[in-house]
């Protein structure tokens, strides 16, 4: 990488990037402290606070619970979102624009209000505090991303390939399986990873939907932090950061982060 000449703009950018990443630059080092309290710069170096996680089964349970929830959310929302996007892209029908807007509407309503609405309604129909309720609310907030990504994938889709498949005598399901799906793979896969991260990171909706005995990891950190601030929060957070980075790296490889967020890399 060629380093550019010094520029005021470059310097400002560097400062702002440090600001945005400051929490991580602080958390990860302070998780290796050997002191019994949280401090930065950390005192000494040890893995004590990582080993102490093992003594706290509730953190490990919460981690696996979050993992499970995020995995099921990713699978279901990818399935439902992809099917819906296919319908929206391939068929012209009355009310299509309205349905398209409806599919993306959970993005426009704050998750706090989605959480409140889901809690109050689900309690009324006896789903309050159930795993199903939590799962459904997580699927709801990740479906719009899948729909949007797959729709974007379908706008640049070369439909003549499907036609060619039909002309060569393939059956509709075969055309879908052998032509449509492989071409949409990056969009679908990144939709799935993004859904996973959306669910795995979520606090605001989970806050209203979890049962007292089963809680997600971010929510557990949220609650723990309000009571005590020890290096344990730093070590648990570091594990979550590392774990998230793996999935972010996957997203970058499969789809490209700039493209995912609508920054077209092809322009100049």
């Amino acid at each position, binding site marked *: 990488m060629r380093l550019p000449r010094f520029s005021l703009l470059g310097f400002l950018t560097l400062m702002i990037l440090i600001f945005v990443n400051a929490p991580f630059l602080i958390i990860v080092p302070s998780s290796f402290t050997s002191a019994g309290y949280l401090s930065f*710069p950390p005192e000494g170096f040890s893995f004590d606070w990582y080993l102490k996680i093992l003594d706290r089964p509730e953190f490990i349970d919460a981690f696996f619970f979050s993992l499970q929830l995020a995995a099921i959310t990713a699978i279901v929302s990818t399935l439902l979102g992809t*099917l819906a996007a296919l319908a929206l892209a391939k068929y012209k029908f009355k009310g299509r624009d309205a349905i398209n807007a409806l599919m993306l509407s959970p993005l426009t309503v704050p998750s706090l209000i989605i959480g409140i609405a889901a809690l109050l309604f689900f309690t*009324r129909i006896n789903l309050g505090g159930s795993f199903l309720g939590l799962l459904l609310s997580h699927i709801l907030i990740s479906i719009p991303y899948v729909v949007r990504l797959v729709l974007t994938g379908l706008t640049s889709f070369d439909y003549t390939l499907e036609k060619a498949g039909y002309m060569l005598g393939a059956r509709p399901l075969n055309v879908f399986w052998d032509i449509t799906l492989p071409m949409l793979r990056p969009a679908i896969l990144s939709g799935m990873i993004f859904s996973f991260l959306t669910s795995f990171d979520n606090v605001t909706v989970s806050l209203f939907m979890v049962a007292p005995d089963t809680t997600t990891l971010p929510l557990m950190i949220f609650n723990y932090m309000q009571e005590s601030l020890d290096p344990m929060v730093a070590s648990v957070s570091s594990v979550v950061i590392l774990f998230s980075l793996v999935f972010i790296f996957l997203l970058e490889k499969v789809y490209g*982060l700039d493209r995912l967020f609508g920054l077209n890399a092809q322009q100049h």
Partner: protein
Amino acid sequence: MLKRFPYLFLLLPALILLLGVFVIPMLFILVLSFQGVEGQFSLENYKTIFTDVYYWEVLWKTIKISLYTVFFTLVLAFPVAMFMAKTPGKLRGLVTMLIICPHLISVVIRNFGWVVILGETGWINVTLMDLGLIEQPLRFMYNEVGVVIGLTDAFIAYMVLAIATSLYSIDQSLYKAASILGANRIQSFFHVTLPLSMPGVFAGITLVFSLSMSAYVTPALMGGTGVKVIPTLAFEQIMAVLNWPLGAALAILLLGCTVLLVTLFSRLVETKRYKEVFSS
């Protein structure tokens, strides 16, 4: 039915989910917000909110915090977006990565980092006291300053992405034209970059404002019990006081206020743009 409307078969699962988990619950809280103590229709929840000065103060504080957040994200995001637009290649990729990565990591963790930096025994206070610059720790947290710092960090990526999108779409030949016409770099910034970045800036402002208005996690962690905003009040009413109709009314009020302010803002911006177009 399915033969005639094959798309229904594909849409149905997602539609059912959206209706059951989103549309119906939203209508449900709207109805609930008009429910009195005995379950009858009444306006008393809204009356409670509108006649109590306390709620007005909290609403104003929520709006104020959101405006500060918009201001700081805008000021910080603009240089980054400009740098991204000017720098092609790998360096741009790296900057994009360093903006988006934190954005994809849980806000609870980012706020925790800020607690370690800004807290009473946090990095800044300890450093300043070690240097002998201050005697008492400064209060960066459990007040509005902490909340604004936390929210700025939480939402800056939205602003950067919005502005960068509009900067990327500026036709590069405009810069050439500007320099042929004798504009220096500052003039071409004010006459080309800035006006053409406005759609992105307005989109970013709208987005960050709405997100800040309804943020719950950051005010709870960085503001503690000291900073009350409408989201924390709504949470309290629903989860602690268990006054669900009042909580629902607060949620509706929050949504209504945000939509109203955002609409007013875009109207204002649009009429201004029309005037500019017609006067030139």
